[in-house]
């Protein structure tokens, strides 16, 4: 069994120096009466992944809204040449982080990935996402029961929908 290094055929990412992090407000999302805390339990958040709009997906996953924070650092390319593979990472200096989630505003389904961060795990994640077109990327960090966000507009040259 191979669990070590070695070249991988699809490992072709061009990491571009992503510099600034644009902090945009998420707008006034309607307040949800019952905080679902879906991200807090162990179940796969099926409903959240079915939501088309970013605001609905955030509500379905967390049951409340996030506030922009400069303690959440979202790193993504300014321009993604291939929307099928966009390298995206998040780090934060916030304490007591319990989850980190990624949303792509204009994808067919906004929620891309949600990561649970147990005690002892560093609140930083890197992954690769698909982006259908040029749109806003939002990262949400759940820390000490509150939600903090960072967002960034990524230009997509070729969309990630294949075909």
């Amino acid at each position, binding site marked *: 069994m191979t669990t070590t*290094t070695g070249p991988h055929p699809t490992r072709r990412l061009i990491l571009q120096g992503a510099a600034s992090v644009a902090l945009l407000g998420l707008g006034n999302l309607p307040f949800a009466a019952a905080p679902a805390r879906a991200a807090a339990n162990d179940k796969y958040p099926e409903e959240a*992944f079915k939501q088309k709009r970013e605001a609905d997906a955030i509500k379905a996953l967390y049951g409340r809204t996030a506030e922009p924070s400069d303690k959440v650092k979202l790193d993504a390319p300014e321009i993604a040449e291939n929307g099928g593979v966009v390298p995206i990472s998040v780090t934060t200096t916030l304490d007591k982080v319990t989850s980190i989630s990624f949303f792509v505003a204009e994808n*067919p*389904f906004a929620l891309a990935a*949600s*990561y649970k961060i147990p005690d002892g795990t*560093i609140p*930083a994640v890197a992954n690769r996402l*698909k982006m259908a077109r040029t749109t806003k990327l939002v990262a949400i960090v759940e820390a000490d029961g509150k939600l903090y966000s960072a967002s960034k507009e990524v230009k997509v040259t070729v969309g990630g929908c294949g*075909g």
Partner: protein
Amino acid sequence: MASSIRVRATSNGDITEVQALIQHPMDTGLVKDSKGELIPAHFIQQLKFECNGRDVFVADWGTAVSKDPYVKFSFKGAKKGDEIKISWTDNKGGSDTTTAKIA
């Protein structure tokens, strides 16, 4: 059969950095094949990393995660030689598991 999961876990003092690369089509269910028929959705929904009997990282994924997914994270409380167990399940009931020693 070769595992679909390739992991590298390296210890740097108290912090262990884990990188994983999984072979999976991650089909969205929105793309048509050459005959114009929709390719059904087929994607990993949950990916778990366990070390010393506890979850250290759990990923819930939708269709927007790239084909052959990659993920990187770090955690504390493990040392060289400890074993990490990685497992995933997809929306069609498929799954795979592997283990890796922290180097």
